[in-house]
């Protein structure tokens, strides 16, 4: 695979229409007509990742971890199994590890080489996660990156960056906001933002702080 470059004629994508929507339609048309792709399966994939798999899943995991110390222990021992308890598993989350934020340590997840991201709990990654800007800078200037998100950490907090270079997928357990003692798991889950589970945000404080 490493040496089959398309020398001479340029990359084959240059054979297709330059406008992305037309290019994708041309590819899809050919693949469907060749019997290689089932259009109903395309719809199923889009529906799944638009409606069923997303950060609302990870928020359930975090809310349970905040509420149930025994569940948190199971997450620490084998996150893949513990997350599957809640019905979330599989593609791009086959091997899960959770990392916990504290006053002393803040975790931040990146994939410098591509776009590795824990699909079963967070869905498909946002544009910024896949951007050159984030991938280049997160490992080198984490406070600067966090500032782009409006996030400021105390000067004494140490940042622990996780570069997802293998098939291990990392989920950040953000700090539980103050003033949430009496909240139900459902109410807690509503406070868990996508970015808080990547490390570029905090969980939302009730009352909108």
């Amino acid at each position, binding site marked *: 695979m490493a040496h089959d470059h398309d020398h001479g004629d340029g990359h084959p994508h240059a054979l297709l229409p330059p406008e992305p929507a037309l290019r994708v339609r041309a590819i899809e048309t050919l*693949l469907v007509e060749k019997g290689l792709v089932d259009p109903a399966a395309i719809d199923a994939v889009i529906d799944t990742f638009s409606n069923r798999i997303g950060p609302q899943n990870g928020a359930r995991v975090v809310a349970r971890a905040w509420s149930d110390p025994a569940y948190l222990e199971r997450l620490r021992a084998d996150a893949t199994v513990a997350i599957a308890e809640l019905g979330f598993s599989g593609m791009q989350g086959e091997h899960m590890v959770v990392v916990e934020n504290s006053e002393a340590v803040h975790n931040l997840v990146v994939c410098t080489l591509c776009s590795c991201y824990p699909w079963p709990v967070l869905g498909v990654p946002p544009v910024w996660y896949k951007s050159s800007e984030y991938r280049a800078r997160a490992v080198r200037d984490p406070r600067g990156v966090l500032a782009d998100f409006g996030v400021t950490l105390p000067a004494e907090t140490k940042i622990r960056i996780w570069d997802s270079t293998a098939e291990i997928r990392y989920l950040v357990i953000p700090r539980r906001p103050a003033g949430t003692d009496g909240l139900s798991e459902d109410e807690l889950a509503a406070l868990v933002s996508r970015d808080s589970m990547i490390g570029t945000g905090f969980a939302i404080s009730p009352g909108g702080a």
Partner: protein
Amino acid sequence: MDGVHDLGGLEGFGPVPVEADEPVFHHDWEGRMFATRLLMGFWRKWNIDAGRHSLERLPPADYLSMTYYEKWAASVVALSLAAGLITRDELVAGHPAAGAAKATPPVDADGFLSFLPKGRPSARDVNALPAFAVGDWVRTARHGHSGHTRLPRYLRDCEGEIVLHHGAHVFPDVAVTLTGEAPQHLYAVRFAARDLWGEDAEAGHSVTADLWESYLAPAR
């Protein structure tokens, strides 16, 4: 390979393009391309490593200027051509060649939905004992190679501490060639940010990456 995909630590890209209330897909065609490339993987003519490598081998200027799903489109075209699933003539014509055989039934919605919660785990049982244990200090390889590899450039020839042992996993540098899986022990290795970036980095910050055993040697 020393490609532009290996972005860790590069400077000059500017602020992160954060978008409030970002949709899952910005255009219909993005979702359709996401789905199409994902479903084409079910033919098993390539694996995740070959898929990644096809993205890495996009012309550098294209890699940096294309949007994510434009890259996926270029990748699925290159992979399908290389695998013989489509031909160049068909790509230009936009339709199957006259008399071209129709593929056996592709994965359908049920097939996709039943695969999704299982995925494709990369952990493997191996007889080899791990060479390192949590707490060991290791040095990463000085040199990479021109194929697909998962040792980022910014972590070459650096010393770090093993903080997790993940067991053995399919080795991407070999799996990309579609000739075997060659599983190896995989470790999370933690590097002090100051060792990577010098005095500009804050003391106490760290970067942890998952690295295969053959990328590592005992620390000097």
